[in-house]
């Protein structure tokens, strides 16, 4: 099973030769290594007692989830189990009815969405959420917003900090675009790309922000097996190269089992299991809940 999900060897070689990789090793990733060493076991992100309902319909009840720095943590469950709601709570799109969220030592009742990027969290969306009227490059570049300090005047004249920042974000964006094999469509409008490519642009947009935590909401939905294999490689590489913590919602059990360090299983808004892929696979509650997933799973993606 495993060999299917490993990235192709040439992909690994490409990633290893990336300029961004070198830059990371010299600067930022040394900080990461340090963090990793110290806080491997501490929670990068912790949810406790999270409940959410919509007009009397319970979406989540009493969810506790502790996500450790640097892990790839998957959240799975049948359709309507509340997986996307969980991501939406972590990213502040929804306010939970009760419970709180702890991110990097700060506790929130509702995560402030506009500060998400500054908190080091980036996410992708289940349904595509690209800026269709911008090119792929601009879609990615724009995600450097919280690194930008240039004033309005500097931007209009293209002088001072604006120029330096522009060069910097251009280089980083190009590196990520190459990293995700998007070079050919760099200047295409995002709205004109195929579904699979748009998904990948979303990943690029999330990665360029150098997030500590990356939330992926069904990144594989609607992808061909080859695309899935590539994307699996990219996600693993993102974690391995940049030390990013990954929270992954995915329907493709094969992908999840091969990629995750730990897996939390939701069913009807409750967490029914939480552990390593092996533990989860042998968990009776999970097996029961999943008796239905084969026919509930939608091969063309869509909503869960």
């Amino acid at each position, binding site marked *: 099973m495993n060999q299917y999900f490993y990235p192709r060897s040439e992909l690994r070689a490409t990633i290893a030769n990336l300029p961004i990789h070198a830059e990371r090793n010299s600067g930022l990733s040394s900080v990461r290594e340090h963090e990793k060493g110290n806080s491997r076991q501490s929670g990068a992100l912790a949810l406790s007692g999270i409940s959410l309902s919509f007009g009397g319909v319970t979406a989540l009840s009493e969810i506790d989830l502790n996500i450790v720095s640097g892990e790839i943590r998957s959240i799975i469950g049948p359709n309507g189990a509340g997986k996307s709601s969980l991501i939406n709570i972590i990213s502040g799109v929804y306010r939970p009815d009760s419970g709180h969220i702890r991110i990097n030592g700060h506790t929130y009742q509702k995560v402030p969405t506009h*500060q998400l990027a500054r908190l080091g969290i980036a996410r992708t969306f289940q349904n595509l959420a690209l*800026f269709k009227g911008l090119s792929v490059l601009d879609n990615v570049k*724009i995600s450097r917003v919280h690194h930008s300090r240039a004033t309005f005047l500097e931007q*209009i004249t293209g002088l001072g900090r604006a120029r330096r920042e522009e060069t910097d974000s251009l280089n980083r964006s190009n590196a990520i675009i190459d990293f995700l094999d998007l070079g050919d469509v760099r200047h295409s409008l995002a709205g004109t790309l195929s579904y699979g490519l748009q998904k990948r642009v979303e990943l690029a947009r999330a990665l360029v922000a150098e997030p500590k935590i990356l939330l992926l909401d069904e990144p594989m939905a609607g992808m061909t097996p080859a695309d899935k294999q590539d994307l699996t490689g990219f996600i693993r590489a993102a974690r391995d190269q940049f030390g990013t913590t990954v929270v992954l919602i995915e329907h493709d059990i094969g992908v999840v089992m091969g990629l995750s360090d730990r897996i939390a299983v939701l069913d009807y808004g409750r967490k029914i299991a939480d552990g390593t892929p092996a533990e989860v696979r042998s968990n009776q509650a999970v097996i029961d809940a999943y008796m239905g997933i084969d026919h509930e799973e939608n091969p063309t993606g869509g909503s869960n």
Partner: protein
Amino acid sequence: MDTVTVRKAPGHWPWIAPLLVLATAYGVIPFIGTSYLFEAILTPFLALSLAGLGLNILTGYAGQLSLGSAAFLAVGAFGAFNFNLRVQGLPLIVSIVLAGISAALIGIVFGLPSLRLKGFYLAISTLAAQFFVQWALTKFGWFSNNSPSGVIDAPPLTIFGISFEGAVGRYLFALTIVTIFTLFAWRFVNTRTGHHFIAVRDNELAAKVIGIPVLRTKLLAFAISSFIIGVAGVLWAFAYLRTVETGGFNLDRSFQIVFIIIIGGLATIRGSFFGAALIVIFPLILSRLGQLFLGDIFNSGVLEMSQRIVLGALIILFLIVEPNGLVSLWDRLRKKPLRLSRIKTIN
């Protein structure tokens, strides 16, 4: 090989075409145009283009539909008039800038609902600006210097000691201001903040998640747009009509500016000019055609009504057939000869 170079040319020198247009506008037209051309066509065209440009930044780029543009035209016109009248010795250019700032501030106030409202709800709330400003300017005589008719003469156009008099002078005045703002807009939409506008338009939630200050971006869009429309109002009153009056800044004018950007092309700089050109020229053509075929039956009342009908039909036609406006039609027409020449080279 050749065709490839030709095809890429516009991308490599995007400034060539605008530069040629500018050279013609400054170097050729002033010497060959008639005063009818300047007064009835070019000057109103420039003022409306600028208004379209302003609205396009808000609606085309930032995705916030406004039905109250005429209010900001009015604020600009009355603002410049009053600054010029009441502050002794204030250069006209400063009056114009202050008028733009006044329009921007009022734009921010009426843009505040955009923080909570979207789509139609927002569009309707911008009508509040339209009616409130129109009411305030009519109700308080102070704004029109207590002129009994409410119609006031615009001051002479003198900037840095240069007097822009006569039809050609006023045309050049308008042309210069429009050129400056077009350059600004063209730069702006390619800056990071310009991209923020598009991001907020295309997906507000995603924009918020990646850290774009959505609320500030929307208010900035209202401010910049209203500033430009305000200055367009100055051109409309000072360079075109030569009078300042509330009558012309009504709801129909607001719709006209919306039509300009729809017919021309949303979220394009050129679109505002294309749209304005059509809006200015089609009534003239219609009136000529009407007189030609219908003679005396085609009086001013009939003309006005048929203008409304044709304008409405044009809007619907464009929405159905060419939703990206004249700009995309133009681009297609320009590519066609290229495609033909490529076929020729292959042959």
